[in-house]
């Protein structure tokens, strides 16, 4: 789909509902969001902004998901006769993960988000179908599948993250990519009212789960409501809004089926607010209240008894401690207790971490993620190692929207470095976008950066839920990602 087709697709939907908004108004909205604006502009302007470089050197990219494959494509467009190798084991690595939310909500079919790695491999880029099993950055070498040694001049880490279901007592397994090796996890997740949209099969199963919940609710009698529980863990996660989006969609489906009053929806989060940015926090709180949601902060899911249907949370708080001479103030004492919650339906957002093979290697860190200078995306220790996407230790950065900013920055800096320049020209400002689906037909387009403020600087309230952002999310972001980014152009 080309740029005008994306726009036309949205405008066609707009035309069907003149009572909501006119074409003119729609265009006005689309031009005020930095995301929508750059999205539509980016596809028109295309590659003309990229100037060709003739730098030489072997570039190896570990991980060919959204970040790795987009970077390969853009590098390939930018460097003449580039020597690029991508290492990626998952044949469906470039599938559209943000669409998993819509699959779980019964809006899309799973087949609509499946994309094949081999179809997206830019011509001239070499592919190794395997996993990196060891990193030796002191000697500029990596090992693939424990046997093949590969050397590099520049290394780009784009391995995404591991969904660590096994860290929750009573569940098992880890998932390293959205579409692979999930048998252990699926023993307990995706059945029996236990769901998780973070991997592709899990997302499809969630839609079945929601329908089961509706059927259960229809048959339900008695005072006590059915309990639907939605969790948010204590680690950084990809797409910070996803745990809430699935809650909004479940609500919408229950309401549509006329059984919303039979089910109580409760959000259990490890943190102490809905969003780090006060404006969005307040907006979400209002949305929760309007929908009759309940919420409990400082609750971290630690255990699951899937037979008894009980979830165990670590509930934590602080109490005033003794006077601290060094602080010249009272200190705090950490307190915690276990809380058992009975559920009929639970959506689990698992703890997430870097893959151990990356996080525990020399390029990793104690915190697990790959430490980079957060503005330049250059590794803090190894000057020829770069990192982007979900695995990078970058505050707030784990979304496709941030990858869209990061890959351009990384490429500009890496090429400058290969040209022998000592100052790196490009800086990432922490831009992230979270199209928070608040219902079927509405989205709040939360755009923000490290300034901890909403980023749109236009006279339009960014905290409002709007239909037009829904159209953007449903019609524009997928072609934008699958066609624009993966060819290095958006």
């Amino acid at each position, binding site marked *: 789909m080309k740029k*005008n087709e994306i*726009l*036309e697709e949205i*405008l066609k939907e707009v035309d069907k509902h003149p009572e909501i908004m006119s*074409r003119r108004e729609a*265009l006005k909205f*689309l*031009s005020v969001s*930095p995301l*929508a*604006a*750059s999205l*539509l*502009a*980016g596809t*028109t*302007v295309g590659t003309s902004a990229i100037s060709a470089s003739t730098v030489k050197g072997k570039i190896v990219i570990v991980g060919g998901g959204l970040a790795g494959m987009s970077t390969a494509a853009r590098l390939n467009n930018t460097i003449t006769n580039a020597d690029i190798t991508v290492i990626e084991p998952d044949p469906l690595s470039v599938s559209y993960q943000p669409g998993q939310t819509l699959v779980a909500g019964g809006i899309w079919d799973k087949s609509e988000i499946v994309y094949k790695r081999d179809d997206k491999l830019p011509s001239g880029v070499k592919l190794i179908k395997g996993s990196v099993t060891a990193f030796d950055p002191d000697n500029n070498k990596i090992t693939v599948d424990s046997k093949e040694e590969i050397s590099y001049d520049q290394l780009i880490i784009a391995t995404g993250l591991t969904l660590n279901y096994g860290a929750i007592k009573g569940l098992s397994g880890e998932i390293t990519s959205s579409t692979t090796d999930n048998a252990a996890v699926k023993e307990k997740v995706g059945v029996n009212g236990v769901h998780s949209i973070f991997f592709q099969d899990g997302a499809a199963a969630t839609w079945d789960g929601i329908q089961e919940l509706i059927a259960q609710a229809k048959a339900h009698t008695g005072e006590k409501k059915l309990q639907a529980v939605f969790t*948010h*863990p*204590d*680690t*950084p*996660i990809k797409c*910070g*809004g996803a*745990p809430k989006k699935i809650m909004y969609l479940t609500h919408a489906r229950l309401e549509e089926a006329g059984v919303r009053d039979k089910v109580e929806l409760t959000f259990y*989060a*490890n*943190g*102490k*607010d*809905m*969003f*780090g940015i006060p404006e969005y926090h307040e907006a979400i709180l209002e949305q929760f209240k309007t929908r009759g949601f309940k919420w409990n902060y*400082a609750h971290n899911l630690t255990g699951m008894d899937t037979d008894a249907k009980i979830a165990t949370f670590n509930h934590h708080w*602080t109490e005033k401690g003794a006077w601290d001479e*060094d*602080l*010249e*103030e009272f*200190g*705090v004492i*950490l307190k915690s207790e276990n809380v058992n919650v009975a559920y009929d339906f639970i959506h689990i957002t698992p703890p997430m971490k870097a893959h151990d093979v990356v996080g525990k290697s020399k390029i990793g*860190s104690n*915190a697990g993620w790959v*430490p*980079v200078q*957060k503005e330049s995306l250059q590794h*803090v*220790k190894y000057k020829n190692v770069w990192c982007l996407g979900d695995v990078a*230790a970058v*505050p*707030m950065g*784990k979304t496709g929207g941030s990858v869209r900013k990061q890959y351009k920055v990384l490429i500009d800096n890496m090429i400058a470095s290969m040209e022998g320049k000592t100052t790196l020209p490009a800086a990432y*400002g922490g831009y992230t976008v*979270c199209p928070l689906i608040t219902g079927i037909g509405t989205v709040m387009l939360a755009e923000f950066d490290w*300034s*901890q403020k909403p*980023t749109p*600087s236009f006279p339009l309230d960014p905290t409002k839920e709007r239909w037009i952002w829904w159209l953007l999310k449903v019609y524009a972001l997928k072609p934008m990602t699958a066609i624009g980014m993966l060819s290095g152009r958006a």
Partner: protein
Amino acid sequence: MTNKITAITISAIATIAFTACGTNKHEEVKTYKMSAAEVFQASCIKCHGANGEGNPEKKTPKISDKTIGELEQDIYDVKNGGSNQSSGTTHTVMEHNMQKLIEKGYDYDTKVMATYMYETFHK
């Protein structure tokens, strides 16, 4: 007709997009009462030690082996109460400390402090 409107809008959008990318309006220039060095010597040093060696008695971890980038990340995290929606932070104690210290005037620029700490620990 439609095509014309679309074309005009796209070029308008393009202009907006490029100006929006080019300038970073959110970077507020903040001035601090004390330099990072003064803050460190007056406060942080008491718990973290002159060389970032930490203090087991006060459950203060060793931070001398961190790189500038890592220190910057950690300080950013501590100052902002974690940096992920609803995930919270693993630095509950230090978050409390930092809030109190900032109230007392011990505020500083994250990057400058990270650099100062690193250079001090590696003298």
